[in-house]
């Protein structure tokens, strides 16, 4: 195969961090090439340089045999490089064709463009009606708009940044079929992900980055996911240990809980019911924006409901606020760490007090026992291996993974009877993620009832005993994880879009 793109010794430094150091790799025509690495390994910086968003400090690139140094994305697009970003840049109030036209240098007349969109979408098995409003589309359909926008430019190289994070399993299948077809026609694909099974299923070659450097290249089909994860992390990984125990009595119960979303354009919860027993881990999956944030708020007590809609150890608790629920034994860890779970400008000691004041007895007659609070913060830092110069640094100075370890440790070390966590390992590197999952499982083994809300299916299947899906504010009936197939999960996740997904999957 002829070489399409060669990256040679590229280096890019930002103040205080070298994002890419002497990175080299090459892609042939029609190759599906994976760029693999933990958060912060330098994947995004590398593709931004290829797409002309960032200029390298040193090193060179060659594209189709010519020296390649795009000054801006428009230049990269002209030469045949297209990119689908993880976060879409679409206008909800415009229709599909208008959105596509906005991304083009010289768009053809609307009628002609709509025809071309239909043609491309049929050719590549990505059904999309050009006259629909983007605001009415699902996340998967929005991604198709972005992909078709790229395909209309007839690209030689298509860059995809974490494309599957917003998709249901069936939608992932559709996407992969499209990508394989493109590859067969000679389009190279640079595929960024940290989902190893996907990469094994799709990619021909993989370049693994760690701390800005290329540490390995491999052929994903010949390696196990475990081997690639260890290359990515640079250390041996131990999968979480399950301690299957007896299920105890019900510790948390929701019955027909409905509540309006306080978030603009949020999703209201509609008749959510489930119970979690002592020692049980309930995993709640779902594509982002289907009520996960609202469910966390309703469980933590920031959103109040009628008393008997939510029971902690069979006592009505729906009308209790966050502090009172903590007193009753329920701790919660929200998804957003900078501003919700923690105050970014406050020290770790102050952030330790933020939730632990009640259960650790850090308040005496209204006055805060700072010495005891500091001891608690130091205990969490030591026990959960939080890398920080000390407990007095501001929370925002910690990396996402380190702060998350601190915040999860803060909740778990309050000897809670019910634990609710939204996105426990989002943006956390693999080693820290494994440690966090292990800590959650240990608490469950110790008799706590745990609810884990996550968009990472692998994570949920790893830690959960029972599994449910949140879709447009409704929760499916929880089912035992044992014996659950990927197809069944996909159907649970499909929900309102189930018909369409089933149609194309069949």
């Amino acid at each position, binding site marked *: 195969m002829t070489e399409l793109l060669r990256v040679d010794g590229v280096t890019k430094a930002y103040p205080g961090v070298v994002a890419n150091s002497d990175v080299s790799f090459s892609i042939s025509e029609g190759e599906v090439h994976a760029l693999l690495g933990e958060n912060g390994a330098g994947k995004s910086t590398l593709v931004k340089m290829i797409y002309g968003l960032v200029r390298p400090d040193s090193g060179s690139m060659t594209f189709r045999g010519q020296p390649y140094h795009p000054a801006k994305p428009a230049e990269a697009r002209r030469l045949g490089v297209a990119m689908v970003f993880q976060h879409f840049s679409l206008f909800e109030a415009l229709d599909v064709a208008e959105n596509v036209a906005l991304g083009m240098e010289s768009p053809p007349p609307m009628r002609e463009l709509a025809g071309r969109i239909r043609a491309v979408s049929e050719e590549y098995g990505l059904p999309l009606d050009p006259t629909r409003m983007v605001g009415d589309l699902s996340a998967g359909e929005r991604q198709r708009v972005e992909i078709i926008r790229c395909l209309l430019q007839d690209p030689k190289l298509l860059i995809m940044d974490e494309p599957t994070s917003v998709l249901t399993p069936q939608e992932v299948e559709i996407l992969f079929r499209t990508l394989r077809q493109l590859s067969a026609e000679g389009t190279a694909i640079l595929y960024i992900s940290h989902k190893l099974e996907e990469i094994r299923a799709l990619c021909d070659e993989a370049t693994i980055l760690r701390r800005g450097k290329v540490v390995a290249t491999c052929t994903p089909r010949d390696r196990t996911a475990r081997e690639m994860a260890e290359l990515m992390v640079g250390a041996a990984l131990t999968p979480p240990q399950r301690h299957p125990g007896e299920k105890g009595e019900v510790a948390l119960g929701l019955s027909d809980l409905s509540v309006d979303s306080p978030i603009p354009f949020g999703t209201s919860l509609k008749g959510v019911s489930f119970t979690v027993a002592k020692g049980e881990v309930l995993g709640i999956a779902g594509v982002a924006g289907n009520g996960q944030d609202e469910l966390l708020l309703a469980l933590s007590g920031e959103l109040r409901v009628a008393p008997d809609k939510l029971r902690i150890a069979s006592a009505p608790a729906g009308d209790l606020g966050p502090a009172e629920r903590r007193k009753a034994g329920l701790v919660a860890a929200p998804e957003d760490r900078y501003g919700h779970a923690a105050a970014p400008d406050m020290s770790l000691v102050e952030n330790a007090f*933020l939730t632990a004041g009640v259960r650790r007895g850090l308040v005496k007659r209204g*006055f805060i026992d700072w010495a005891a609070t500091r001891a608690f913060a130091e205990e969490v830092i030591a026990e959960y291996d939080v890398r920080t110069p000390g407990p007095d640094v501001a929370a925002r100075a910690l990396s996402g993974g380190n702060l998350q370890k601190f915040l999860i440790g803060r909740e778990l070390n309050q000897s809670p009877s019910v634990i609710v966590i939204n996105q426990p390992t989002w943006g956390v590197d693999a080693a820290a993620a494994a440690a966090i999952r292990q800590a959650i499982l240990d608490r469950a083994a110790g008799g706590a009832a745990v609810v884990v809300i996550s968009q990472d299916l692998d994570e949920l299947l790893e830690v959960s005993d029972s599994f449910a899906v949140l879709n447009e504010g409704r929760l499916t009936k929880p089912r035992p994880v044992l014996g659950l197939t990927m197809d069944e999960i996909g159907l649970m996740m499909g929900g309102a879009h189930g018909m369409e997904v089933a149609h194309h999957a069949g």
Partner: protein
Amino acid sequence: MLRLEKRPNPSRFWLYATPAVAVALTMFVGGLLFALMGKNPFEVIRTIFWDPVFGEFAFYLRGQLLVKAGPLILIAIGLALGFRAGIWNIGAEGQYIMGAICGAAVGLAVFPTENRLIFPVMIVAGAFGGWAWAMIPAILKTRFNTNEILVSLMLVYVAETILAKAATGFLKNPEGMGFPGSRNFSSFPAARNSYIVESLGLHWGGVAALATAVLAYILLTRHIAGFQIKLAGQAPRAARFHGVSPARLVVMCMGISGALAGLAGLFEVAGPAGQISIDFNTGYGFTAIIVAFLGRLNPLGIVLAGILMALTYVGGEMAATNLGLPSAAIQVFQGMLLFFLLAVDVLTNYRFRLGAGAARAAGVK
């Protein structure tokens, strides 16, 4: 090209250096302003900052310092608690007026009875007047989500109208030969806010200001309510997650700042001012906003800032009478102080970086 970059940790050095740099810059630019007006800048600066403490009339002016600083400190501490929580009470001037009217009315109602309880009851009434006036924007905010900045500010003008009515109508001195203004408390010993140490200008208001500073410091550093105030200001969602009710916090902070402003008004009307008059209020409630920020919203810093600001008042008056400087120039001078303070304050959380390449990368990120 210069570029601002967020510091990973707030700078301790700039946290404390900011007020000093702001004062220096104000002196410099203020000096330029005075020079443009044809005055000798060094003489003006010396008159404002040096003479009141060490000059010829310092024995009298030193006392004036605390008289002016007392109400500024008292009001600024209350405002600072709210500002820390992100609750912007701009109407302390109105609460100050209402506190004075309520407290004075209680005292004047029982004139000329002599009873030791009269002054303490007046203090309570003064605090109540300010508190009640602050409750109007607080309740409108919690019930109807109105903007407390606008409502509290507009209520200042309502309070000024009520003050005029009090001075010319319901609190007018019946023996005042028809002149506007209430009876003078200097001739009503049981209701008078008398000096404790006359040479220092220390009256009960000054004592209250210093005691409040200590109490507020303890509240902010040790008490859970202080923690919640800071948390709500820095991370409102984290505060709700902690379990703070935003409505309760608004009512608490507006209430405290209103009550303290009312107290300041009562101590002023029963002491240095002596009576309710049409022009009783002299802008302490607005100047206290500058004092609160100059003192870094820290109660102990506010004590120092209040004294510094009193210095510009006392020194400014000196400069006006001795050097013929217009009083508006002094207000510009005080305004500059806040302006420079807020400008230099950026350095606490940000630092300057040189370099065009880095700026480009940040621009597209």
